[in-house]
């Protein structure tokens, strides 16, 4: 932001205008879905390029003044009012999800990225489709279904949805899904873990006798998706999966880790212990890094952490960059007072 750029002055008045640097969106409605989830309807900036149902969007949210990025599936197809929607389930201890579900309100401004992801229905639509979802894994699929059923021409495909959730009341979009089933648009198999136990992939054949004829779309917890992949690969069946939180950044116990410095010229990897500033670790391996006071005062050494975890040597505070989630520019860190806290990738000169 600078008084020299017209854009920054215009941002004060029209943050959603075409050509604004950085795509933003304004929350227009927050609708509770279950006690633990809510749908956030957002009017995206004029530069929003549209999306295909099933895709996700990266969202930058300010929580306690800090901008944090997460990805959420878009739960509507393209809407006539031009808005987009995400549905968020508050996970225990989830800083961003709890903020969005419980504290987001109309008028809030969110940072957006363009829609991404290849978890979309094939075109033309296969005649027989199986959707396997669990928990908030329903979110990309509801977008697909809503889009299909809002079209003027009737849907000819035979769609089976197997959905697992903890309780009946905890099924996000439960009433809407049951209505689709009553209208004969889909065949719905609900599985409530509290009463029926966990969904076992081996049971699928019993629930869906013509499983072998179907193209499967699945989204849910890692365990379910892994089992499904193993099952479908063994049976040689077509499968599309969407994995949420594909990467969990491992954090060390204080003994450092592997730091990789990335520049246009190449990469240098060093083993850095938990007490050595990354600036020193990089320099002793011959990496060119910006530097200044070397005591955390001048901010002359700030470079982006692309992924991984670092620890502030002054107070032990962790900074974690998660691929696919952290903003496009990484998280800027001060290398002179940060040590590796596990594996990390950092930009160098």
């Amino acid at each position: 932001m600078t008084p020299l750029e017209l854009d920054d002055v215009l941002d004060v008045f029209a943050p959603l205008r075409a050509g604004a640097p950085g795509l933003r969106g304004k929350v227009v409605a927050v609708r509770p879905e279950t006690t633990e989830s809510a749908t956030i309807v957002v009017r995206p900036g004029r530069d929003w390029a549209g999306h295909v149902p099933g895709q996700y969007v990266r969202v930058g949210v300010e929580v306690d003044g800090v901008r944090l990025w997460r990805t959420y599936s878009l739960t509507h197809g393209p809407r006539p009012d031009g808005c987009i929607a995400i549905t968020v389930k508050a996970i225990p201890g989830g800083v961003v999800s709890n903020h969005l579900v419980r504290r987001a309100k109309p008028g809030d401004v969110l940072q957006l990225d363009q829609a991404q992801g290849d978890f979309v229905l094939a075109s033309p639509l296969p005649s027989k489709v199986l959707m396997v979802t669990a928990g908030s894994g329903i979110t990309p699929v509801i977008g697909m279904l809503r889009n299909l059923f809002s079209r003027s021409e009737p849907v000819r495909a035979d769609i089976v949805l197997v959905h697992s959730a903890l309780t009946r009341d905890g099924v996000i979009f439960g009433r809407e899904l049951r209505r689709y089933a009553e209208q004969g648009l889909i065949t719905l198999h609900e599985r409530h873990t509290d009463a029926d136990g966990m969904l076992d992939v081996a049971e699928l054949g019993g629930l869906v006798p013509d499983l072998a004829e179907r193209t499967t779309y699945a989204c849910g917890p890692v365990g379910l998706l892994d089992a499904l992949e193993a099952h479908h690969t063994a049976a040689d069946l077509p499968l599309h999966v969407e994995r949420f939180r594909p990467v969990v950044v491992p954090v060390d116990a204080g003994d450092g880790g592997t730091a990789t410095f990335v520049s246009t010229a190449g990469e240098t990897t060093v083993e850095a212990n938990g007490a050595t500033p990354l600036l020193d670790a990089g320099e002793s391996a011959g990496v060119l890094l910006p530097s200044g006071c070397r005591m955390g005062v001048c901010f002359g050494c700030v470079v982006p952490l692309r992924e991984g975890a670092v620890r502030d040597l002054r107070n032990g505070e962790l900074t974690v960059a998660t691929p696919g989630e952290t903003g496009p520019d990484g998280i800027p860190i001060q290398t002179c007072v940060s040590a590796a806290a596990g594996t990390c990738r950092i930009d160098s000169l």
Partner: protein
Amino acid sequence: MTVITKQPVNPTAHLSEADIEDIGRRLDAIRQSVIETRGADDAAYIRKVVDVQRKLELASRAVLLGSALPPLWVLGTVGLSVAKILENMEIGHNVMHGQWDWMRDPKIHSTTWEWDNASTAEGWKHSHNEVHHTYTNIVGKDNDLGYCIMRVDEDQRWYPAYLGQPLWNFINACFFEYGIAAYDLELGKNLRTPKEKRSEEFKRRASNTLRKIRKQATKDYLVHPALALPFGGAVGALTANFTANLVRNVWSHSVIMCGHFPEGVETFEKAAIPDDETRGEWYLRQMLGSANISGSDFMHLMTGNLSHQIEHHLFPDLPSNRYAEVAPQVKEIFDEYGLTYHAAPLPKQVASAWHRVVRLSLPNGWLETTNAKNLPSQLGLLWTMATGSKAERRKAQKLLDVRAAA
């Protein structure tokens, strides 16, 4: 004042090593308490200041379109001056310190901010954040001590040229942004270097600075007057921009003088600073080398909270809106360890800083030993020192030293 290690009684002599490390630990704890409570309110604060600044600047520039009418000229000029001061002091300076980096908003970030000033953010961050804040008040290392053009410490040798320093200081105040730009580039040193020997780095930074000055001048002195031309306000807009820049320059120069130049603020000897200076020792140097300005909330805002210079130097990366809250805790540490916490209202601090500039423009001891009665003979002595040979100057200085000691 002279570097602390040459004073008759070193103001830190009563502190043990353990005391100094204890001070460090207590200041670290204050810092951590602010970091732990940094949050939405602080973010809202800086966004509000940015928002107000943008709107004030735009509104003032709009009013100045009609600056053919004198009341509108006055209103617009006042508004633009305040807007420019806010941008440089409470926003630009503090954002470039990384005070708001924790928000992870790339728009309000030390790596991306460019300010409404002739000096580039890059040059400023080097000379100010890195050199000045690390080597604060170390004679010969911290160029902010006199900006290489002034004598601000007894230990800097006196030359007759320093007699002009009150004038240089006044001119520097009026054109402070250009002074800063030249200073960031170490222009004096680099211009003395033959052209072919100047570093590529200097050439790159010099061309960036020139480009920036051109853009700044285009905005203030061409585009804005051109926009006002149809309303007959071109000349008014031009003079208003010039005045606002002048006001901003004099104001920021005054505030910055108050930070380190008032009488009583300590300076340090390069040789006396250990290579492995501890965090406690660094903190102690910041405590002794800075002075605060007391005043209203509005005054704190307009100084970019540099009125809390002591707290700023201890914690340059904490959000400026939190300095007021930690100031009493910091003062308590000063009191407990018998250190002097310099704080006074702006006029007093400005006068004190100017007194130092004037006093040190003269040979050591001259001002102190001069009174109405001996003025003619003192002037004669000064004349000898200003025009005489080195030997004569040395002899006269000895005389002054003896008189001052008596």
